């Protein structure tokens, strides 16, 4: 396990948020609202409505292209989240064997349909959240939480947690390396040593927190004065937010696929 790889894996997504594309320049609040509306809309569909979900693929795909986010990086993270959904999906596949419809000679069961819906929905929701993180710096997201009246204590702690992860990762990795080097090729930390190992990491972490707090106080830190760059709401921000909401509502209440088939019948 390479520390640098691990740490860069954590922060790689956020590093992208320093980009300067159309999407990056949007107001963080507008992106936050759009993402939330999108997820709620996607989740609100029924368990067999695969067709209705299809148009929603446009949002993450186009957003990804516009924000120049590498697809592979997002896909890797989507795969992490899949297993639990896969389990629920497969159980549907096995339990609901009644045929929903037939294509050619293949029966498509309700289970297969709901399996597809669960996986597709997982993909859409996760892509939306990851893209939000990839195009919005974390401190700006945190500032928006402050504007949403979430108490400063919590937001500040959230930001600090995120910043500390890298520091403690390095600490944990060097401790682990030392352990491995002295234990003649052990694969991991033995469970008998887990307590002292993790406990030691904990004590070091707490000592570090004390030092950091003293340093912050020495530099005149006060909880009220922490702030980040203020964004001005521009017309494009409002336009983006309204556009996404309109898009979501449109495909929520109008069955585009259904309209197509009606058209087909007329022709």
């Amino acid at each position: 396990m390479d520390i640098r790889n691990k740490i860069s894996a954590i922060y790689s997504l956020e590093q992208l948020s320093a980009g300067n594309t159309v999407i990056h320049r949007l107001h963080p609040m507008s992106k936050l609202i759009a993402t939330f509306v999108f997820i709620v809309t996607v989740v609100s569909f029924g368990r067999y409505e695969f067709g209705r979900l299809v148009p929603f693929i446009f949002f993450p795909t186009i957003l990804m292209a516009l924000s120049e986010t590498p697809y592979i990086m997002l896909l890797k993270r989507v795969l992490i989240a899949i297993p639990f959904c896969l389990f629920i999906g497969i159980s549907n596949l096995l339990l609901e064997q009644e045929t929903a419809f037939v294509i050619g000679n293949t029966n498509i069961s309700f289970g297969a349909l709901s399996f597809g819906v669960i996986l597709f929905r997982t993909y859409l929701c996760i892509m939306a959240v990851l893209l939000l993180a990839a195009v919005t710096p974390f401190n700006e997201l945190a500032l928006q939480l402050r504007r949403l009246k979430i108490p400063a204590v919590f937001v500040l702690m959230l930001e600090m947690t995120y910043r500390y992860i890298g520091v403690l990762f390095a600490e944990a990795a060097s401790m682990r390396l030392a352990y491995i080097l002295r234990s003649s090729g052990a694969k991991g930390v033995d469970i008998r040593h887990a307590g002292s190992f993790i406990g030691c990491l904990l004590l070091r972490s707490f000592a570090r927190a004390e030092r950091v707090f003293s340093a912050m106080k020495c530099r005149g830190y006060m909880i009220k004065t922490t702030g980040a760059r203020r964004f001005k709401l521009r017309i494009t921000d409002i336009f983006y937010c309204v556009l996404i909401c309109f898009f979501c509502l449109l495909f929520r209440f109008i069955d585009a696929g259904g309209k197509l088939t009606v058209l087909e019948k007329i022709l």
Partner: protein
Amino acid sequence: MHMADALLSVAVGGTMYAASAAAIGYSIAKIKKDEFYEKKIPIMAVAGAFIFAAQMIDIAIPGTGSSGHIGGGILLAALLGAFPALLTISAVLIIQCLFFADGGLLALGSNIFNLGVIPCLFVYPLLFRPILKKEITPKAIWIASIAAVVVGLQLGAFGVVLQTQASGITALPFATFALFMQPIHLLIGIGEGIITASVLCFVYKMQPEILDRNTMLHESCSRDRDSGQEQAQGDESGARKKAPLGNLIITLAIITIAVGGGVSIFTSTNPTGLEWAIERTAGAGAEELESNEPLTERLAIIQETTAFMPDYDYRFAGEDGSLTGTSVAGIAGSILTFLLAGGIAWGISAVKKKRRSRAAAS
């Protein structure tokens, strides 16, 4: 054990959001009573980051190829106190959701409830602390940790089962799902309990003041003995307060019921996917259904539409094959849509690349 967006309905997700938000708000209010609470923020933040770092360490579990890691609700509560621990866990879950795709934005409330509120605000004060009431010995720490972690995880896993079932996403019968989830989390719980216990024992041996100062185990012991009553506290000020846990539970319950009720009324007056499914499976169109059916059957359908967990019978309403044509068209349409979306994305990237290379050349 993270809940995903795809497994939740909006009503359940919203309800859990409300419950978790109430619990967090209550915890913040509690913490702020401490005049030195600012000093606690870095410690809470480091504890959150510690959870991430500790998860990276692979602890070899003998006899299995797998490795365990700590999820941390009980550990954090024992180190920081119940209320700060809830905030820390929430921060961890938010970061996991945003950057690691673990859990989801809508599922956040549900995850905070299952992994934070349950272990920190219920299991910790009601199970962990009473076990360590008399005196703190390594043995007592072991028993308390394993019991609390196992119970916490069992309740959390049960929460996942309940929330998934209430959302109506899975076809798994309730009992099967629970029978699958609970034993797995029993094993995970024992593993995590052992690690939690050994960490707490080590910390107690090395720097007992960390445990004492933060959870005031000793003080709470004497207080509990005095009042003979369960006390929920997270503040260091040591002000005597009578059972605020009761208030918390009542507040939580009221908010949950209010929001849950509100959301379900809203969703049932705005018929969603179920109605569509009924229309689709009922045959050619909904018009026939409306005009020909006697009132009772229509009522039954309305009931089915608005039911909390409707029967799945509506699927069999019509199998006259009328779906076939539309479905083939639907699938072709879906594939076309995917291709179109991919094509647009490809086009945008191509244009961007060209523009960049032109800028570099000039």
